[in-house]
């Protein structure tokens, strides 16, 4: 901390804190440290002469260190009990959180989006609490704050660091965002943030998206009581507009097939590293390349059969808690899932063999 404060008094070019470290501090630091890191990052990015150095420094460390993050949240939280849901009506404006319409224990409001957000938040809380021993998104029982009716004709849903927000859609491209896999996805971004984080660009950003899809899908499968082969493995089923030719936003079982439409084009998700999309759009294709780790998770589940939220979900959850590398590549993540699988089963178990096979099939050797 003193190090950073010292840096701030000098020209940023003389500061030896590399950009990748600043990004981690911006993600993980307390408010003051994060602000300092963001300021330094901003200054660094303006220096054109430093661009090459920036690129090199963007590489993930070869040997992620273990530390406080690796030790947290792998054991069940104490005093784990009940969610504290707070659903707000944004009244079609952008200010958050809006008007509180339903608190924990209140009866239905009669506002369909608000009641869906309330029920779904309970199901996602239940997945993390009962299956993985996690007390809410931060592991410490934080309130589940959500806003429905966010903005007007808003084609989006998001996690802003402290709460979820859901638009209604414009009725043409999207008809709603209040669907359990979508709500689970957004809440999982909160879990990822409080698990050490994954920087939201390129491969680490695609992992952030993929892990959010995994737990969104698991929340839905668990709520429906579906085993692996009964589930459709779609994310956002039924949220596309009535005139759109598509079943969902993404497919974990068959990435690239969720929609094919004159307006939207073809679902661009790849399922194999050979088709990895290099782009500067969408934070480096975070919503595109997430298809690859999504499919690896699906394959792992399909090989094992049964309930995906049990062992496969526990492996992914444990890997997230022990990752300690916010700039992880797909390969780093695959290794982490293998370590988690070995810890939860044993070295050489059938589960680890199937996991290695799943990653190999999407082009990632571990």
């Amino acid at each position, binding site marked *: 901390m003193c190090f950073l404060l010292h840096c701030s008094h000098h020209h940023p070019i003389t500061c030896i804190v590399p950009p990748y470290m600043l990004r981690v501090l*911006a993600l993980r630091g307390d408010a003051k440290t*994060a*602000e300092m890191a*963001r*300021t330094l990052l*901003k200054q660094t990015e303006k220096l054109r002469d430093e661009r090459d150095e920036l690129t090199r420094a963007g590489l993930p460390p070869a040997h992620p260190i273990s530390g406080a993050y690796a030790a947290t949240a792998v054991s069940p939280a104490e005093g784990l009990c009940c969610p504290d849901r707070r659903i707000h009506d944004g009244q*079609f*404006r*952008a*200010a*958050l959180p809006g008007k509180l319409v339903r608190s924990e224990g209140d009866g239905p409001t009669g506002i369909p989006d608000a009641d869906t957000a309330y029920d779904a938040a309970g199901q996602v809380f239940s997945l993390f609490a009962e299956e993985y021993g996690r007390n809410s998104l931060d592991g410490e029982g934080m309130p589940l704050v959500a806003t429905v009716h966010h*903005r*007007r*004709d*808003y*084609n*989006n*849903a*998001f*996690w*802003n*660091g402290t709460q979820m927000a859901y638009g209604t859609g414009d009725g043409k*491209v*999207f008809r709603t*965002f209040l669907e359990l896999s*979508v709500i689970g*996805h*957004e809440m999982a*971004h909160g879990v990822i*943030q409080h698990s050490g984080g994954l920087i*939201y660009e390129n491969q680490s950003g695609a992992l*952030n998206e993929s892990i*959010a899809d995994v737990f969104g899908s698991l929340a839905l499968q668990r709520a429906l009581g579906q085993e692996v082969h009964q589930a459709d493995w779609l994310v*956002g089923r039924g949220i596309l507009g009535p005139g759109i030719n598509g079943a969902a*936003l993404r497919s974990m079982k068959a990435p690239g097939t969720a929609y094919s439409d004159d*307006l*939207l*084009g073809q679902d661009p998700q790849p399922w194999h590293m050979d088709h990895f999309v290099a782009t500067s*759009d*969408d*934070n480096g294709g*975070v*919503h*595109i390349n997430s298809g690859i780790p999504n499919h690896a998770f699906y394959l792992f589940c399909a090989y094992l059969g049964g309930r995906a939220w049990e062992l496969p979900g526990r492996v992914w959850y444990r890997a997230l808690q022990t990752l300690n590398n916010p700039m992880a590549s797909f390969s780093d993540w695959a290794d982490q899932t293998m370590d988690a699988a070995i810890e939860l089963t044993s070295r050489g178990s059938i589960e680890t063999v199937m996991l290695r096979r799943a990653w190999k099939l999407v082009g990632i050797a571990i």
Partner: protein
Amino acid sequence: MIIEIAAQGGFGGITAASLRKTIDVSDQPERMRQDLCDAFEPDQLARLASRPCTNCADRMTYRITVTEDRGTHSFTLREAQIPPEMLDLIDQM
């Protein structure tokens, strides 16, 4: 003043789902005209663009181009950098 707004990103990551708007401020009612001129003044946009973006998961990115007498100015703003009142204005446009 002519304002062009093109958004991309978001949960879906679908470009075609994104907002695109172009308006000529002089065609707007008086009150709206003043609000737009204040909100989209290039120096104001530059200040917003320099704000830190704290958490951008699934957020939209806005490319805003303002053409006025002094020339054309383009800015890329993350949704989290834009004040709610300005987002409401964008939704009304």
